[in-house]
C-alpha cells in the first residue's frame, strides 16, 4: 500500500530558506574550524618537538664543550693552588710558564698578580680584566689574541697575597656555537615550512573526511532522508562515525515507517469498526420497532466502542513497549509463577470451549523484566491459541531455561500460520487469511513481539506438529536470562 508521506512528517523547508545563525552552510570561519585548530595544534606540537630536539642537541654539543672547558679550568686551578702550597709563588709562576710553554693549541690563559693587582708575576695576560666584580669567580670576557678580539672563559682564584686567573680562549667554541646557531636557524625555517605544510595537509584531510558526513547531514536537513554517509573503506574512526550515523538514520527511518504504519493502520483498520458501530446505531435509531430494540442496539454500540477502546489501549501498549519507555521498571521476578497464573486464568476459558490446556513449567524461572507486560504477552498467546484451536483441541504452555536464555512456548493444534505469512504476523492489524473469520484485532502478536524486543528477546513461529494437517502453531518467546 503506497501511502503518500504526510506533509507534517516532511522536514521543514524553512530551514533551507532561512538558515539559523551558525548553520553549516559553506566552510566555517577559519578560527571556528576544528580542522584549523587541529592544524595549529599539529604545528605547535611539531614546533615543540623541534625546539626540544634543538635544546638537546645544543646541550649535547655546545653545552658539553662549555662544561668540559669549565671542568678543565677548575682542575687546572686546583692543581696550581696545590703547586703554590708546595712551592710558593716562584713554583706557581714556574708552573704557569711550563703550562704555557706546552700549550700547543694556544688556548690557555693565565695571569698571576699580587693581591693589590699592581704587579704582574706570571701568565700571558698583560693586565687584569677591567670591570670585574670581586665576588665573580667565573666570567667571560674579551681578550686580544693574535690581534683579534677573542672570547675567553676565566676563573678567578684568590690565594693569600695573590690573585690568579685561569682560563681558556673560547674562539673555536664560539665558532662552533655560531655554526650550530646557523644550523638551528636554517633547520627552524625547514621546521616552520614542514609544520605549515603538515598543518595544511591535516586540515585538508580532516575536511575531506568530514565532507561526506557534512553532505549527508545537509541532504537530510534538506529533506532527502534516504541519503547515507559514504564509507571510505578504511575502517577508521571516521568510518565508524559514518556507520553509527547511518545506523542512527536507519533507525530513525524505521521508526518513521512504524509511525506511518500505525497512522495508516489506524486510518484504515479502525475506520471500519467505527463506521460499523455508527451505522448500527443510525439504523437502530431509524428502524427500531420498540424501546427494547433500541436499547439492545445502544448496548451493542457500547460494546463496539469498548472493543475499539481496547484496540487503542493495545496500540498504546505496543508503542510504549517499542519505545522502551518501560525499561526503567524492569525488576527480577519469577516467570514460572506468572505463567502459572496465566494458565489458571485461561484454563477455564479453554475448558468452556472443550479444549485442554496443559502446562510444563519449572518450579522457578527467575528473569529480569516487566512482569505486567510479560503476563499480557503470554495472555495474548494463550488467547490466540484458544481462539484458533478447535473445540476438542489441546493447548500446551511450557517454559524452560536454555543456557543463557529462557524460552516460553505456547503450542496448539489449530490451523497454524502459513510460512509466507509468518514474517508479517508481528505487524499491527495483520490477519492471516485463515483468521479472517475469527474475531480479533490483529494486534496480539504485535504486542508479543514488541514485549520480546523490549526484553532483548525474540519471537519464533513454527509448526507445532510438522508434517501433519493441520500443523498447529507453536509460538516461542526467547528471552535472555539474567
Amino acid at each position, binding site marked *: 500500500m503506497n501511502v503518500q508521506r504526510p506533509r507534517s512528517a516532511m522536514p521543514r523547508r524553512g530551514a533551507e530558506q532561512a538558515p539559523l545563525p551558525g548553520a553549516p552552510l559553506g566552510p566555517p570561519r577559519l578560527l571556528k574550524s576544528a580542522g584549523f585548530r587541529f592544524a595549529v595544534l599539529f604545528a605547535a606540537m611539531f614546533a615543540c618537538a623541534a625546539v626540544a630536539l634543538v635544546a638537546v642537541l645544543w646541550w649535547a654539543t655546545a653545552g658539553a664543550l662549555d662544561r668540559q672547558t669549565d671542568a678543565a679550568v677548575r682542575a687546572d686551578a686546583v692543581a696550581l693552588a696545590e703547586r703554590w702550597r708546595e712551592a710558593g709563588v716562584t713554583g706557581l709562576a714556574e708552573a704557569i710558564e711550563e703550562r704555557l710553554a706546552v700549550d*700547543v693549541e694556544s688556548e690557555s690563559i693565565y695571569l698571576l698578580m699580587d693581591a693589590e693587582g699592581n704587579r704582574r708575576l706570571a701568565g700571558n*695576560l698583560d693586565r687584569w680584566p677591567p670591570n670585574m666584580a670581586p665576588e665573580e669567580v667565573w666570567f667571560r*670576557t674579551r681578550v686580544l689574541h*693574535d690581534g683579534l678580539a677573542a672570547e675567553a672563559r676565566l676563573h678567578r682564584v684568590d690565594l693569600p697575597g695573590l690573585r690568579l686567573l685561569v682560563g681558556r*680562549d673560547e674562539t673555536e667554541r664560539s665558532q662552533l656555537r*655560531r655554526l650550530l*646557531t*646557523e644550523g638551528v636557524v636554517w633547520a627552524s625555517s625547514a621546521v616552520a615550512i614542514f609544520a605549515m605544510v603538515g598543518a595544511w595537509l591535516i586540515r585538508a584531510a580532516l575536511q575531506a573526511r568530514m565532507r561526506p558526513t557534512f553532505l549527508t547531514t545537509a541532504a537530510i536537513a534538506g529533506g532527502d532522508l534516504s541519503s547515507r554517509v559514504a564509507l571510505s573503506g578504511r575502517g577508521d574512526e571516521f568510518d565508524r562515525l559514518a556507520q553509527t550515523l547511518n545506523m542512527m538514520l536507519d533507525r530513525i527511518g524505521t521508526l518513521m515507517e512504524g509511525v506511518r504504519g500505525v497512522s495508516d493502520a489506524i486510518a484504515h483498520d479502525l475506520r471500519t469498526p467505527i463506521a460499523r458501530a455508527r451505522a448500527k446505531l443510525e439504523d437502530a435509531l431509524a428502524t427500531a420497532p420498540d424501546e427494547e430494540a433500541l436499547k439492545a442496539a445502544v448496548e451493542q454500540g457500547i460494546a463496539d466502542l469498548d472493543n475499539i477502546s481496547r484496540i487503542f489501549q493495545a496500540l498504546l501498549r505496543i508503542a510504549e513497549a517499542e519505545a522502551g519507555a518501560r525499561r526503567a521498571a524492569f525488576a527480577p521476578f519469577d516467570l514460572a509463577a506468572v505463567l502459572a497464573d496465566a494458565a489458571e486464568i485461561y484454563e477455564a476459558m479453554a475448558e468452556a470451549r472443550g479444549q485442554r490446556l496443559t502446562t510444563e513449567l519449572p518450579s522457578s524461572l527467575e528473569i529480569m523484566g516487566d512482569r505486567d507486560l510479560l503476563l499480557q504477552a503470554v495472555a495474548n498467546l494463550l488467547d490466540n491459541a484458544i481462539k484458533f484451536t478447535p473445540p476438542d483441541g489441546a493447548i500446551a504452555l511450557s517454559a524452560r531455561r536454555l543456557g543463557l536464555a529462557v524460552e516460553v512456548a505456547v503450542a496448539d493444534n489449530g490451523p497454524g500460520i502459513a510460512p509466507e505469512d509468518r514474517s508479517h504476523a508481528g505487524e499491527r492489524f495483520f490477519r492471516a487469511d485463515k483468521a479472517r473469520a475469527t474475531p480479533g484485532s490483529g494486534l496480539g502478536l504485535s504486542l508479543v513481539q514488541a514485549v520480546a524486543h523490549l526484553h532483548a528477546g525474540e519471537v519464533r513461529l513454527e509448526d507445532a506438529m510438522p508434517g501433519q494437517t493441520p500443523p498447529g502453531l507453536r509460538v516461542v518467546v526467547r528471552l535472555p536470562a539474567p
Partner: protein
Amino acid sequence: MRQPLAALLLTHLLALPVAAEPGPRVTTDTVEYCGSLAARLASLPAAEREPSRSLGAEGKRLCDTGHVRTGIAKLRRAMRAAQAAPATP
C-alpha cells in the same frame, strides 16, 4: 642575506654577555715570547734530540720570518716532545 643576519643576531642573543670595551691582551703571541720559548727549549736536555730539535728549529725559523703564531706552535710541540722524551738517550 637575511639568514646570516638572523644567525648573527641569534648568536649574540644566545651568547653570554661580554664586556663591551677591549679586554686585556694575550702576550704569548709575540716575537718576544717566541724568543723566550726557544730559550726555554734550549735549556732542556732533550732539546737536541729528534723530533724536538727539528721542531724547535722550524719554530724559530717561522718566528723569524714573521709567522709567529705557527712558530710558537712548533716550539711548543718541540717543548712537549722534549719533556716527554726519556731522561737518557
